């Protein structure tokens, strides 16, 4: 659906040039929700703005449904953009227009027949749950409501793709979840492919099928959300994943626990979270697991858990128990230090 191929972008500024994107390649599947996560300055906004050419790539291509949009003429680009909706962190509504007009004006300007405009505006305002606010001005709306108007505005062009540049970053946690649920519903019911960028793991966790982690203009890790979460490879990814668990264990504690056994971090998802694996290994092997810290959370549809466990027992018994857990599809990693427990837990 969206294919980003060897995309690079260099900004020339007075103080030299900034390589905001370095050879980025991504593929967003039709009907999927793809998330890009990274810290501030990683190049996420630059990436998403290259998808509808708000920013022109220095090299590389972006194609949507097989059309290379970097090769379009100005007129063709206008048409192509109408099929790519976009929402922003700052909502970007007309302050001087009512909710109704905020959706209607762009429709009028893109040549939607007058008789259809009213029906469309009303339909999409009702999808985002704002039918009763049609005559209100943006200043009288909450952040979440403003984003709903922006979503209705984007959807009213009946796009195939929706881009979100930190669409929930200006909202409180509850409102964020409500908007994310709305995005999920749009994706399911209208079949719109969504590419979103965020710096919050929570957003990825809640809605994304696939994820790419960016750092310094590069994609350092990408894949299905569940795979990236359960076995993060890159340091930055590990930090993000750990952010949703947050096990706290001091170095002293780890040192003293290591005298009597080993500490492992266990990650399990879907099927593996349903079996009482820990209970089984205590029966099969001569070890005593002790849960130091644990957490279970939800990844879109799958449960996803993380445990920090101290195994007391002989080294070889522990080794066999760990092998058994791995066979059951549980990700394991030994924890040696506090720093590491923060990173890998």
């Amino acid at each position, binding site marked *: 659906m969206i294919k980003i191929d060897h995309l690079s972008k260099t900004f020339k500024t007075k103080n030299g040039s900034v390589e905001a994107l370095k050879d980025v390649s991504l593929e967003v599947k039709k009907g999927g929700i793809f998330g890009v996560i990274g810290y501030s300055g990683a190049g996420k906004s630059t990436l998403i703005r290259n998808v*509808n050419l*708000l920013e022109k790539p220095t090299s590389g291509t972006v194609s949507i449904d097989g059309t290379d949009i970097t090769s379009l003429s100005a007129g063709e*680009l*206008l*048409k*192509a*953009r*109408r099929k*790519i*909706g*976009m929402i*922003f962190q*700052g909502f*970007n*509504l*007309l*302050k*001087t*227009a009512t909710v109704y007009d905020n959706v209607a*004006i*762009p429709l009028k*300007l*893109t040549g939607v027949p007058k008789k259809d405009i009213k029906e469309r505006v009303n339909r999409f305002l009702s999808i985002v749950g704002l039918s009763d606010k049609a005559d209100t*001005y*943006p*200043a009288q709306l909450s952040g979440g409501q403003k984003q709903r108007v*922006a979503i209705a*505005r*984007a959807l009213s*062009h009946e796009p195939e793709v929706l*881009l979100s540049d930190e669409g929930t970053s200006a909202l409180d946690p509850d409102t964020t979840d409500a908007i994310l649920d709305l995005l999920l519903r749009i994706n399911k019911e209208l079949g719109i492919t969504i590419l979103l960028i965020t710096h919050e793991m929570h957003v990825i966790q809640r809605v994304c099928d696939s994820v790419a982690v960016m750092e310094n203009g590069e994609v350092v890790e990408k894949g299905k959300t569940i795979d990236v979460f359960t076995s993060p490879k890159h340091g930055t990814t590990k930090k993000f994943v750990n952010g949703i668990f947050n096990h706290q264990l001091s170095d002293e504690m780890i040192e003293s626990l290591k005298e009597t056994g080993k500490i492992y971090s266990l990650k399990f998802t879907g099927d593996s979270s349903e079996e009482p694996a820990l209970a089984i290994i205590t029966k099969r092997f001569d070890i005593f697991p002790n849960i130091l810290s644990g957490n279970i959370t939800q990844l879109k549809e799958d449960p996803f858990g993380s445990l920090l466990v101290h195994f007391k027992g002989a080294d070889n018994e522990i080794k066999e128990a760990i092998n058994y857990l791995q066979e059951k599809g549980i990700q394991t990693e030994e924890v040696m230090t506090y720093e590491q427990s923060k990173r890998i837990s």
Partner: protein
Amino acid sequence: MSKVNAFLEEWGSYLWVALIETFQMVSISLVISILIGLPLGILLVLTRPGKSLENHFLNRFLNIIINVIRSIPFIILLFFMLPFTKFVVGTTIGVKGVIVPLVVFTAPYIARLMETSLLEVDRGVVEAYEAMGIKTKDIIWNVMVREARPSIILGLTIATIGLIGATAMAGLVGAGGLGDLAYRFGHLRYEPSVMYTTVAVLIILVQGLQSLGNVVAAKLKKD
């Protein structure tokens, strides 16, 4: 009361004529100045670096022209421009003769005020409209000018008041108006009551305009 009646009897028609003249001068030159100044203001914004019609040369050129004209006091402009005025409207006297210098004086000022107003418009909204595949010309009118309206109205109010001030000098080329009345009768022929009355009318005019501008701007502003 009889004093007032006597005053009106003697000066009422002069005042009325002067008021009409001021009105004519201000409204005609305002309309022409807006027709020149607004597009110029838009051009000043759009030719800036990073904007859709980015053009360093044109932007510099416009800025220099505007700054040069705006440095010249109106009274000097009025005389300096006599040959040009003659060339454009065929005369240098009367209301017709003063419109050209008034427009040359006001249009660049309006262009600057429009530029400032348009620059206040949130870049993000413009971007959102670009992302929706909307043409630049439609964005100019439906986003930039539309969102800037409250600020544009306030700017035009300021420009109009400045214009009223400039018309006081119009008497020098025989165009009449309130300023001329106050000067000729109030000052030269020493009729203080004419002077005071004219000043009072001007104060009411300016106050009224500013209040009107404020009300309209507030009405257009929705936050």
